[in-house]
């Protein structure tokens, strides 16, 4: 199994790479279009600022490439948000794979932003969550979120329910970091590899 991790200098990719290697995958960081196209699976990571990240994707032509990918693609955190139509973060247009608006959390009861730490996920759908118990704890770090919509694959509650995960055709996204979510995260990555 070879897995291309899209390299666009946005966030911590070492941990994703290490987690996939622990699952005995040939995981490599690349921005090379051919290498991405020929990979069995693609991971689209990202931590950081949506505007800066989109610029970096455009610079490498990755904004055109990613939506055309046919193999299973997993967008993690900012990667998932960038797969959406638009983000409120610096008014940034996204890749428009999912017709969703990424919104800033608006606290209602003094909730702290970023939403940071371990929270439960529920209403788990798609094979990504096979064998994962409802209400399992996973690790989140984010200030923006995708509301619950047609393609929500898992929900989480912070201020209100939002998409902890999304899925459509070959595209999957997790708002949380499976590579930072201990044994539960490991199981989810294992499920992704099996897709």
């Amino acid at each position, binding site marked *: 199994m070879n897995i291309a991790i899209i390299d666009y200098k946005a966030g911590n990719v*070492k*941990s994703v790479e290490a987690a996939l290697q622990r699952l005995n995958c040939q995981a490599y960081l690349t921005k090379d279009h051919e290498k991405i196209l020929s990979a069995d699976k693609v991971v689209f990571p990202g*931590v950081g600022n949506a505007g800066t990240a989109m610029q970096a994707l455009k610079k490498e032509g990755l904004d055109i490439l990613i939506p055309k990918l046919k193999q299973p693609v997993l967008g993690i955190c900012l990667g998932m948000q960038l797969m959406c139509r638009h983000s409120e973060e610096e008014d940034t247009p996204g890749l428009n794979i999912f017709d969703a608006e990424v919104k800033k959390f608006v*606290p209602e009861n003094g909730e702290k932003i*970023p939403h*940071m730490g*371990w929270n439960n996920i529920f209403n788990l759908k798609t094979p990504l969550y096979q064998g994962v118990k409802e209400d399992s704890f996973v690790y989140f770090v984010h*200030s923006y979120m995708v509301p619950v919509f047609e393609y929500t694959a898992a929900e989480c509650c912070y201020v209100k329910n939002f998409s902890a995960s999304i899925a459509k055709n070959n595209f999957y996204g997790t708002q949380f970091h499976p590579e930072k979510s201990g044994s539960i995260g490991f199981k989810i990555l294992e499920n992704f590899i099996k897709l």
Partner: protein
Amino acid sequence: MLAKRIIACLDVKDGQTVKGVSFENLRYAGDPVELGKAYSEQGVDELVYLDITATNEGRKQIYSLVEKVAQNLSIPFTIGGGISGVEDAENLLIHGADKISVNSAAVRNPQLVSDLALKFGKQFVVVAIDAKTIENQWIVHTHGGKRPTEKELFSWAKEMEDRGAGEILFTSMNHDGHQTGFANEALCKLSEMLSIPVIASGGAGKMSHFKDVFQKGKADAALAASIFHFGKIAIPDLKQYLIKEGINVRI
């Protein structure tokens, strides 16, 4: 529901984990990667590695530590100590750090926090504040608590939030190393004043101190070192205790 976090802090000097009493008289407490793995298996929610000598001495070796931690652990970790610019932070990110914490450098150059937040996102930026009370005022100290500054804790924390800090890690130097409980009054004020998470540090000695820091101190996370390193409190026991006390933690 978002869980309260238990964080183990590993102070690192020359590649080894140490923990002193009130920042002095350092003692050895094991290998940082192995210790981190052991904590992860016990159910700790996060790790903080503080390179405590880094501000004053060289720090290149931290990169190989960061890489080893990223390869071996599947929980988040923060690296702090001696980060003086965007370039240091970027190198740590490239080697696998999830977050970095800045302390002295933010006092020296507050703009750094704005720059880091813009470049890497605020969730990457933890601002660590060491403070102790001098004439009834919480005075911010830098350089591992050695140097007093002119800054006052609450206004400084607010400025850091405004500049883009993602979390505040507040260590009470009055309490650190004494194991008599956290600085709950100051923590509660901080937590209510800020709209970003507050990590409490300094003073953990027994399990009830954690209950107090979450209930009275309103902290989002609690950090401790010696009591974990030397086995005085086991993480699984602590979490069972907190759940029994009605505090939401991950098990």
